[in-house]
């Protein structure tokens, strides 16, 4: 009886040991994707769509784990600290990590992560409240310049604030930013006319416009396919391009064979029509970048963002 019990008790340990011994062909067990935001938002949606497909492709279950807190810092930190064995991955909206790194005392840097793919390209935008008298950028800017500091812009997230500040700086206005804890709260404040403007991503376009909010412009290179009626800032004479791109990352230092397996699987699912439909349905503009393209894009984007962060650092910290 006693020996049986000992055997029984040690069985799970033996199994676990056997599991690590034959970790030859990645992946042999469940994979987890850490999302540094709470469930339900854009980043979480991307992670879940991708996890679904990628899991099927790799033949293992992929669990999405939400590790929200401190504007994404907690979760990104955890991704960077995880073992680089391919069983912990992360999905978040770039440039959250970059902005956090340069505005706070974070323990991760840009190079703590290995960027494997990007799935979307979602520009930031400015929306005006339903009661606002301003329908275009021009009207808005001329009012803002005449009434410095009076216009109130709501924002949420690291990028939301940066975008609001860059928008004010480039259009020579003084506006008052007000922080909201999430996109939903921000939309509520805008639609209830408690604030004048909102700095948020193009994903909020439909609900805002449905309730008579006004899109002023998107910080995109060119007009979006999804919303052809909304002008870009560029065409209205304002040089501002800024957006979120959801990236799939691993902690830096993946073994070569694991990295190859992941990259190949990602490339393969990138053309899956069902997945692309899921993205489009969720109002997330799909744009796949493979591992080399994503690194090129990020480097370019970092060099554009850095000066914006530096010139607004006081405002970001002291705001």
């Amino acid at each position, binding site marked *: 009886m006693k020996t049986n019990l000992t055997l*029984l*008790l040690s069985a*799970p*340990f033996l199994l*676990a040991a056997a599991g690590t011994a034959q970790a030859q062909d990645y992946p042999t067990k*469940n994979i*987890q994707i850490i999302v540094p935001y709470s469930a339900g938002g854009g980043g979480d949606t991307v992670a879940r769509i991708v996890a679904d497909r990628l899991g099927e492709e790799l033949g293992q*279950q992929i*669990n999405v784990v939400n590790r929200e807190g401190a504007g994404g810092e907690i979760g990104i930190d955890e991704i960077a600290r995880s073992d680089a064995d391919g069983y912990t991955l992360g999905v978040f909206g770039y440039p959250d990590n970059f902005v956090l790194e340069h505005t706070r005392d974070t323990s991760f840097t840009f190079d703590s992560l290995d960027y494997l793919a990007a799935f979307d390209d979602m520009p930031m935008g400015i929306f005006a409240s339903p009661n606002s008298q301003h329908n275009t950028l021009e009207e808005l800017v001329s009012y803002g310049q005449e009434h410095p500091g009076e216009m109130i812009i709501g924002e949420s997230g690291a990028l939301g604030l940066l975008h609001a500040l860059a928008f004010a700086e480039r259009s020579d206005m003084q506006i008052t930013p007000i922080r909201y804890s999430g996109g939903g709260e921000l939309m509520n404040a805008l639609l209830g006319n408690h604030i004048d403007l909102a700095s948020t991503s193009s994903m909020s376009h439909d609900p805002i416009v449905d309730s008579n909010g006004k899109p002023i412009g998107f910080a995109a290179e060119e007009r979006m396919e999804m919303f052809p009626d909304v002008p870009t800032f560029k065409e209205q004479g304002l040089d501002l391009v800024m957006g979120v791109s959801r990236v799939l990352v691993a902690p830096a230092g993946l073994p070569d064979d694991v990295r190859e397996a992941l990259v190949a699987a990602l490339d393969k699912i990138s053309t899956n029509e069902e997945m692309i439909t899921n993205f489009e349905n969720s109002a997330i503009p799909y744009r796949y970048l493979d591992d080399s393209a994503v690194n090129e894009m990020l480097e370019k984007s970092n060099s554009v963002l850095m000066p914006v962060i530096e010139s607004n650092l006081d405002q970001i910290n*002291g705001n």
Partner: protein
Amino acid sequence: MMLTVAPLPTNACAQMLSNLILGVIVLLSSIFFYLQTTDLPDRSALFPQYILWGLAIVGVLLIFQALLEGRKKAAKEELEARREARVQFNDILIFQVMVPGGLMLVAYGLLLSVGFYPASAFLVFTIYSYHAFRIDAENLNRALWVRAVIFAFVITLFMYLVFTLLLGLPAPSGALF
């Protein structure tokens, strides 16, 4: 309303003493935390400072209340009751709070080092045995250990099956799991 092993120390004297200690702790910690706020930007410091002022005032009032109660001449039997209540309170503090709390912290340490499931088995085993020990120290015999081991194993296995295998919930993992 509470059900505990020992009857509650309901007399005013025991209350007075614990209120005095509570008041002092509240006052001191609010001062400590208030000092932490002085480096913060004004807008961040404002709200916590108001709260800490409030806490400090509550602390002072608790001390006053306790001292006023204490000044009333205590009869002899009340002194006796006070001592008894104090002993009872200490008893609860050590055996019902510190020991189980300590076991939880050890389990937390195990959680960090070896993972959730070994920690859970440890916790079930120790709490189960401790419960039996608190009822009667004589209870700690071989049969109890065996029951504790089996119970710990069954609960841990059940949680593993439901949470990890069935639901795929992530459990805190350590070196072993």
